């Protein structure tokens, strides 16, 4: 067919993923070669360096737009480096650095939040024994594998590569969810639930992919888009395929009614892993959704527009209403993350008009939520996290600093001016208006007003209630968790007061290749 069959690879475009991937393997070697006592600093340094390196590689790739693999001058769809892909990779890199620091926290509670030997039966004598040991350091290579998957997910240009990326980001996460040192049964239950439902969703994905292949004769997103106009196959294949792929991606994004795993998994997983999921996986999942719908399914937009609108409305309203009665801070944040998925879906539905603002929202939300979970991990009853909200009563009395920080984060999530929550929502909704989605914007505004109630209740609880005599202690953060909180709050405020620079960046980076 083509004159030349020479394969050229744009290694620079591949570099962000390669760096993290290689570092993950290096991390496995560290486990084998470095003595136990010195593993933690080595692993953390390796992970942070790799992620920082990946970020630099992303920056060096800026303005690039094209396929990474080229066969005889023709770009192959598998991995695509373009504006949105690069921005999302960069966001994932930065947010994962912060998440890694939180994973590395060992000061707030002795030995950290991760189990030393996951194979020991929960609550057995050996388990009690190992609670005194430092947590396993395998979590860092696992995280790096997951991050590689996320980076691949947002740049995958065909459904098959995307599937590989999806599994690659999911499998290490299933494991990480089950590695909590305390309340291990809940943690293991969460991991199993996440795995089973994730596998279920993956099956939908593969089935949908098969349908779309049957329709378009290719798994390439651009090809599918083309086929949406010209294919002679029955369109039924397209509809089933779109529906199945959407279900799988919406599962990862935690949209109603595919959200039910979210509160259980967020609560059961070790808090640093929850932070990683709420921030980075959210970015990856919506990165994937944006790419699939913008480059693969934009030609059939009329067909899926209604059902995605219904899902977005259900997600916004459902997440907000569910959040109102939560008594557990991690569950509250889980439902809030569901509602936020609804707002982000508006950006997906609005297609090209709102790509940049959706990415801005992802970055802004990521920083805020990661800092919020970091604070959650600091408030403790003895060794365990005090996740029940009643235990947070009067925190402002005993630990005003922590309470101020958490108040800022809550107000940001509630979308008050001067915080990134406001600018992100405002710009996303404005962009959606330009795509004539006034109805969705109205629902979004109402939903965020409802969602402000539970956040406010937390603030009231922090400041206006008398602390219990045995109130939880706030372990002053070590440099690790301190950096996480400081970075998150700083980003929340900076993006709230002067978001211009980042909005400029996302504006330039908002065009997908092949749209």
């Amino acid at each position, binding site marked *: 067919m083509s004159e030349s069959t020479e394969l050229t690879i744009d290694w620079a475009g591949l570099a962000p993923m390669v760096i993290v991937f290689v570092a993950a393997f290096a991390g496995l070697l560290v486990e084998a070669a470095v003595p136990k006592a010195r593993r933690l600093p080595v692993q953390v340094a390796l992970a942070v360096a790799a992620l920082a390196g990946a970020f630099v590689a992303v920056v060096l790739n800026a303005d690039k737009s094209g396929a990474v693999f080229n066969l005889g001058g023709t770009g192959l769809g598998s991995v695509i480096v373009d504006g949105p892909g690069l921005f999302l990779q960069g966001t994932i890199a930065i947010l994962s650095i912060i998440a890694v620091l939180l994973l590395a926290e060992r000061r707030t509670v002795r030995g950290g939040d991760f189990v030393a030997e996951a194979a020991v039966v929960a609550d057995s004598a050996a388990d009690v024994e190992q609670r005194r040991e430092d947590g396993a350091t395998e979590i860092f290579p696992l995280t790096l594998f997951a991050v590689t998957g996320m980076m691949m997910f947002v740049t995958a240009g065909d459904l098959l590569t995307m599937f590989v990326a999806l599994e690659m980001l999911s499998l290490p996460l299933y494991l990480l969810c089950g590695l909590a040192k305390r309340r291990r049964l809940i943690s293991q239950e969460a991991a*199993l*639930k996440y795995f*089973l*439902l994730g596998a*279920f969703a993956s099956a*939908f994905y593969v089935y949908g992919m098969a349908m779309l292949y049957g329709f378009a004769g290719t798994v390439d997103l651009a090809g599918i888009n083309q086929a949406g106009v010209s294919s002679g196959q029955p369109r039924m294949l397209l*509809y*089933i395929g779109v*529906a*199945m792929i959407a*279900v799988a991606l919406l*599962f990862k994004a935690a949209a109603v*009614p*595919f959200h*039910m*795993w979210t*509160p*259980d998994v967020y609560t059961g997983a070790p808090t640093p892993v929850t932070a990683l999921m709420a921030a980075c996986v959210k970015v990856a999942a919506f990165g994937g959704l944006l790419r699939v719908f913008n480059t693969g399914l934009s030609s059939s937009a009329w*067909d899926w527009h*209604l*059902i995605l609108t219904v899902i977005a409305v259900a997600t916004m309203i459902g997440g907000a*209403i*569910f*959040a*109102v*009665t939560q008594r557990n801070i991690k569950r509250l944040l889980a439902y809030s993350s569901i509602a936020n998925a609804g707002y982000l879906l508006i950006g997906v539905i609005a297609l090209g*008009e709102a790509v*940049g*603002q959706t990415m801005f929202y992802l970055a802004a939300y990521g920083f805020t939520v990661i800092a919020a979970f970091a604070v959650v991990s600091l408030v403790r009853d003895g060794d365990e996290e005090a996740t029940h909200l009643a235990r947070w009563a009067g925190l402002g009395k005993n630990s005003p600093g922590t309470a101020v920080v958490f108040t800022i984060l809550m*107000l940001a999530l509630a979308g*008050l*001016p*001067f915080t990134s929550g406001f*600018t992100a929502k*405002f710009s996303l*909704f*404005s*962009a959606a*208006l*330009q795509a*004539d989605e*006034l109805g969705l*914007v*109205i629902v979004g*505004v*109402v939903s965020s*007003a*409802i969602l402000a*109630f539970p956040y*406010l209740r937390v603030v*009231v609880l922090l*400041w*206006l209630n*008398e602390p219990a005599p045995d109130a939880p202690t706030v372990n002053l953060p070590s440099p690790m968790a301190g950096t996480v909180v400081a970075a998150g709050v700083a980003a929340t405020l900076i993006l709230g007061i*002067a*978001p*211009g620079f980042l*909005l*400029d960046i996302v*504006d330039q980076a908002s065009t997908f290749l092949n749209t």
Partner: protein
Amino acid sequence: MDEISYAPAEGLLSFTWVLIALPALGAAILLLAGRRADKWGHWVGVTTIGAAFALALGLFGSLAGLEDKSAQLDLFTVIEVGSVKIDASLLFDPLSAVFCLLITGVGFLIHVYAVGYMAHDPGRRKFFAYFNLFAAAMLILVLGGNYFMTFVGWEGVGLASYLLIAFWQLKPAAATAGKKAFLTNRVADVGFLLAMFLMLGTLGTVDFAGVFNGAAELSTTTSLALGLLLLAAACGKSGQWPFQTWLPDAMEGPTPVSALIHAATMVTAGVYLIARSNVIFSLNPDVQTAVVVVGALTLLFGSIVGCAKDDIKRVLAWSTVSQIGYMFLAVGLGGGAFALGIIHLLAHGFFKAGLFLGSGSVMHAMNDQTDIRRFGGLWRKMPLTYATFAAGWLAIIGLFPFSGYFTKDPIIAAAFTREGWQGWVVGGAALLGAALTAFYMTRLFVLTFHGPKRWTEDVHPHESPAIMTGPLVLLGIGSLAAGGLMASPVTEWLTPVFGEHHEAHGHLTHLQVTVATTVAVVLGAALAWVLFRNGTDEVPRAAAWPVRLARADLGGEAVNRGVFERPSRLAASASVAMDGRVVDGAVNGLSAAIGGSSRRLLTLQTGFVRSYALSILSGAVIVVAALMVVVTQ
């Protein structure tokens, strides 16, 4: 209509931003310095507001010398999305100028007063920090050059007032009041946000100039929706019907807060919003009617409830609700009445702040007691407070030649100019409101300062220190004179904002209205004097149903409970029956409704993987089915 445009700021006017920066800086110093600043911190607050007032005077002077009476200052671009560009811009024009003077001027006096009032309070520094924060936010609100900036200030004042009400004391009433204020304001904010997005969706801009120039081309439905959304926002902020209940509850905060936020400035933000958006409101007569109805209804509502309250601050709070009703009535009438509303707002800022500070002085003397049934005969003990309170009283009831006469009478007269039967109804309501105002204010005044002593045993009333009486005297003078001095120059000053208007002719001539109002006021006041000059019972007695109804806020709370709380409790208990969970009656009103449905929906969250998988599966089936349906059509 002429194209509306604003000239760029030059000279001193390009320093408009300093006006906001000064109180913000004060707040930052007070919050960051921590306990070190406990000794001198309040003076930082006073100084920064004082400096802001001086600057506001300077800016006012510069503006007066300008040809086109406006100065727009674009600071930086906040958000740029596609064709929408939103700047952090400030607009200094006649309307924002008078508001800046009111906020910084009255704010300065209240700050000085608070130095004395809060002298023995351990939280004084924090109080001044929040106070400054509020002033900064309020200045952003009135100086904002587009709806976005106005909204930023709008949320800022809400937050600061919430801090000031609820963070004041660790008492449940204050916490509940703060929460109520916040929730009501959230509902109103939804109105504001939706209005902004509607502007963006139809006009593509939220700049004042852009919106006003494009407004004429909007469809009737759009302009109606826009007007009603803005009205909802304004009603929430200003405690107008049906959002009136939060304002009297907010009196749980310290008295200087009530004076500044809940009398002089923040609660008038709704009037500002409508006046600023006068172009939009003038477009659609239905919207104007809605504003007029809200105003007339609220002014009656507030004055009726005010007659039955025994708490000195609550009477004043309901009086504020009622007086803002007058302002809404004025801005709803439109045309020349816009300026009347603003003038009444300014005069009200003086006399109501004075009355609140006076009540604070009384409370200071009476061990923080607020029940007017236990006052009486205080005029001998506190002559200065008495005199200044008397000035406020004369100003609010509006006898010639005091403030209210020049600011409230024209509103009543304007109400009679409305065409047809509406003019009679609205004008009659305004007239009746004037009589009721005279009645409840006289009742308050007489029961507090005259008649026999009904004090509890342990109080020893005394006059407040000079740092408190000084501002009182200044505000007292302002109360008496402001209306007469301001009425015609301010109307002229505001002409560039509201345009030229000729006096309309109504059902009654201005002289007839003046006579009628004076008679009504004298009758109301005389009735109160006769009834209460010999004091009253020390505890409320059983009374006829109208009094009972008024004591119960005319059923405002009951409506809240009946419409929102009870059905949602029923829903909640129904869901209890379903899932055996305990309802702890979280909060009243809307949030309980949501809470009820929340609990009910949560029964779906069983914790079993199989039911989650079923949910995913049914979701998938629905998605496929829906796609089919769309396609087959």
